[in-house]
């Protein structure tokens, strides 16, 4: 299709992003809900709190733990993913490692921060949505962090959209920003997360093979997407903060 992806976007367009803070109210210390296209993730954060009875917590900082739950109805086919599912474990590790490095843990010695993520619907970019939701929930919980961690995906189509005039065959096709489920299953894609919307990359994860020359362009597109995700998240945080301060909220 000329110049358009299968859902009508162009190569450099994000999907609709909707985010909301404090969705679980008082039942958690912080919570957030993020939709990127039809990928929907709910995150709740408890902590900083005393660690569970077993561990005693690190004396030099806080421990971050993460649990991910996939709703059985979240994908096209109904699949139950258990605790030991490989995909679940990978997601948990990725989120836990990312935030352990970004949260200012030295300020919260001997405490535990528990992140719990519920994936309600999957339409591509699950890891990115999980990271974005966690960032917002941590902000809602008031946990000190270096900056926003914003994530986005980028894919590399084999054939270009031919949006240009020449459309010469020697041109490398433009990478796709923010791939949806169909694209994710079709073309190689990566997830990248940056700290503060700059060029400081916190996470890069890729599960498919791609030519090494194409990687740089994909990363660049992904990083630019992260900056735009940050703007959207920042806007929502400020709106929510203002609402709270104005006392117009509940």
């Amino acid at each position, binding site marked *: 299709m000329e110049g358009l992806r299968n859902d*009508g976007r162009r190569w450099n367009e994000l999907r609709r992003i909707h985010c909301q803070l404090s969705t*679980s109210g*008082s039942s958690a210390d912080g919570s957030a809900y993020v939709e990127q*296209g039809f990928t929907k993730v709910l995150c709740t954060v408890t902590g900083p709190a005393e660690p569970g009875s077993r561990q005693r917590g690190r004396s030099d900082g806080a421990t971050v733990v993460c649990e991910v739950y996939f709703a059985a109805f979240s994908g096209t086919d109904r699949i139950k993913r258990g605790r030991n599912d490989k995909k679940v474990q990978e997601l948990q590790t990725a989120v836990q490692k990312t935030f352990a490095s970004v949260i200012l843990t030295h300020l919260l010695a001997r405490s535990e921060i528990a992140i719990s993520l519920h994936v309600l619907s999957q339409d591509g970019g699950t890891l990115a949505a999980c990271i974005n939701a966690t960032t917002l929930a941590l902000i809602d919980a008031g946990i000190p962090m270096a900056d926003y961690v914003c994530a986005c995906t980028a894919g590399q189509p084999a054939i270009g959209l031919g949006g240009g005039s020449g459309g010469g065959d020697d041109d490398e096709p433009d990478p796709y920003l923010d791939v949806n489920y169909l694209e994710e299953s079709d073309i190689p894609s990566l997830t990248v997360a940056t700290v503060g919307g700059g060029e400081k990359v916190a996470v890069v994860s890729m599960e498919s093979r791609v030519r090494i020359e194409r990687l740089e362009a994909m990363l660049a597109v992904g990083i630019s997407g992260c900056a735009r995700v940050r703007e959207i998240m920042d806007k929502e945080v400020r709106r929510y903060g203002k609402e709270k301060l104005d006392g117009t909220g509940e």
Partner: protein
Amino acid sequence: MTSIKRMLADAAGHDSITSKVYIRSAKSGKVTKIVREIYLRTDIPCSSRLCRVCLLNAPVDSSNRSRPFVLSEKPAGTTVYPQGHYLMPDTNIFLQCMDAIEHKSAFYDVIVLQTVLEEVKNRSLPLYNRLVSLTKSDEKRFYVFHNEFRQETHVRRGQEESINDRNDRAIRVACKWYQKHIEQAAASSGIRAPAVVMLSNDKDNLAKASAEGLDCIDLQNYVKGLKNSDELLDMISSSLQDQERKANRGDNIYPEYFSISKMNTGVRNGTLHQGTFHTSTYNSLEGIVGVPTFDKHLLVTGLENMNRAVDGDLVVVELLPQDQWKRQSDKLVDQDTLTKNENADVDEVEAIVTERERRALVDEAKRIQRSQDESQKVQPTAKIVGVVKRNWRSYVGHIDPGSVNRAKSGGQQVVFFRPLDKKIPKIRVFTRQATQLLGQRIVVNIDSWDRTSRFPVGHFVRALGELETKEAETEALLLEWDVQYRPFPKAVLDCLPSEGHDWRVPEDKSHPGWHKRTDLRDLLICSIDPPGCQDIDDALHARLLPNGNYEVGVHIADVSNFVRPSNAMDSEAAQRGTTVYLVDKRIDMLPPLLGTDLCSLKPYVERYAFSVLWEMTPEAKIVNTIFTKSVIKSREAFAYKAAQMRIDDKSQTDPLTEGMRILLMLSKKLRQARMDAGALNLASPEVKVQMESETSDPASIEVKELLETNSLVEEFMLCANISVARKIYEAFPQTAMLRRHGAPPATNFDDLRSQLRARKNLDLHVESSKALADSLDACVDPQEPYFNTLVRIIATRCMVPAEYFSSGTQAYPEFRHYGLATDIYTHFTSPIRRYSDLAAHRQLAAAIDYEPLDESLYNKDKMDAVVKNLNVRHRNAQFAGRASVEYYVGQALKNKSTEEEGFVAKIFSNGFVVFVPRFGIEGTIRLESTKTFDADEYVLELEDGRKIVLFEKVRVRVDVVKEQATGRRKTELTLA
């Protein structure tokens, strides 16, 4: 607890997002509901050069370029739309009239809606591909408008609205939008706006459109307003043409097909079977369907059971009860004799089985009952209950002169079209140019085959020229075998090196071309090829090493250096798949600049090569193998004969000749080793047509001569192919480009074995290729030296064809090449003329870390698609080559009636097949009457007491006659 409240209220602000909901049901019976987002936009241009607004908003890509606008500012007018018009056809128009739409004289400035494009894609992939290539070409000005993604033209399916209705509405909405948009654009520049014309044949849709004030017209009326309306109207699918006639048609001749779900369930339960239908070469009333559940093919006899299936269709069959099982017919039946007096125009009183056919079938049934060893030879029979996938294509042939009503000068009439391919039934064609088309080679497409019609109905596509002119016949042949023969498009030629013929291997070794390349220019390399060969793929060398072993090198043209993956030239080559050799013409896979010059390993010049270097012991055992890209300089290009003479000439003792002697010595050992492993030595009747150099008319026919040097080259090429196959399989176990040759099922040899047993008291052992090779060697008749060759020719036809595959699709034991008796094989040695070799080159280059592998060569799906195409192209190229030889043999023997010696290769109750070795031709001789036929002894006694015996010699007269059925000059054999 607060709830997350958003969605509908929130989404209202976003009218630029909508979702598409659809239900997908899998074959397993599972139903999935899928919801996808759609982003609606306002920046999709109308692409009319009239419009300024869209030009300003035109989207750009990452390098800030936008597409040029397609639709011209002054589109052509017709009588109905004198102000000019843009066309907006609906889906059915594309499905039924693609041939007319592709015509050069009309159908310019066409808006292809996304809705329509997707519908076409779902209905017919080949037509979709043709439509896409139309939209890509600059000359026809086809523009794909993404109406589904444009906010104003997106249409939501209403409740209770069928998908078809919704799509029709989408087309009307898009048409309306375009009309307004173009009017505005034209008004701002003060021109009279061209009309936007919706083209449809759906009466309902047309009525609704005109009610909405749209310009709309049906196809017939539209085409009538064009200049060459007669020709264009002929090209329109007949299903549109005789819609009215269809309504008042007579009785159904054929049984109805089962519904798709009934067929699916049946196939799943095992009550029905699915397979490809093949019409018998000798009997047009009989065909076979190979299904996995039975060893033997299922026999389908009679038109009613064949139920409108055409050769190559994927069909579903139902087994007939056992008491109706039969032997394969031993009669020659041909369409001609059955349907001689039928009139194409008459379709009311056609009975399914004509009297003549019925008699033929009854005769046969009687004969079977008489036969003795019924149980052994009887085959399960089946009837076709549905067609899963049609294999219809364009057919080349001519109009049956008998069916044309010459008196009727103007107006439409129905005529019979006789395809060249005898397996295809006659096709009824509606035409307004019947008298002009007589005596022409024409192309016809099948449109449909209704239950009420005895023959399929088709439409005229184009005329190739007079029958029997060289140009028309060659083009007919290429079309018939789907060989892409048009000149290379500009995009392909743009990929060639800019230096053209002046390209040289760079002198400076620091040039990137020399990167990781070995300098082999000092080796004494030569090439040995058929005389007059221009595309030299391979060259060889050999020399003695100090340790007593030999170094042998095979050097292959480095085509992958010039053809980069996935550029236009690569796609074109992948599409063509192979170079096709005809008697008087070569249809290249690569542009001639590469094939005959830059890649070709011509003598005395430096060329890039891909070399395989072995160290071999004097017993021809490989000690070590090295693969490397190299630069070589061939010292000489020999023809087989010249090389043979050079080797045989004892007085020549220069190092080059010595090297060739080493090669010959080693090749004999390699060959012996291969034969010991059980490689088959099969025969095919190959002849060569000598052309007169001045008139380029065929002059004489020669049987191809085989010299030792032929097999010298062959052995080393096989050896190189095997070495490369191992290497690329090791590097890419999932996607290596390999070639396999399956072991033929033992049942394929049943006929031949029982014939040999009965006639010669010989047997074939078919357990392994080794056993077969040995028993073929034993098949000799001391009195008749040619008998062995004849058996080999027949045995070759029992084999399954070799095929390309990517290594991930088969288990390792299946990699075996039966004919060559090797466990793994690929094609590496002819990259100029075969795409598979080019792919192998790229994979080998990656395997030796020369350059990274392109994505397309490690992607399983893409490899599968490439391989599938290659197999088809390879087979077609072979058929086209053979057909070309056949045609020229016919031309060479024209007006020369000779008596020749032939051998009986197959025998029927009313005729037999004779093979004439001198001309490499095979012909069927039909006999009007015979005395007795002994099916078990394969003896046919003629009225005059002469006996025709299988495998025995027979004198035949070879004449060339113009065949009525195909309009082509063909050799005809008669008993002398």
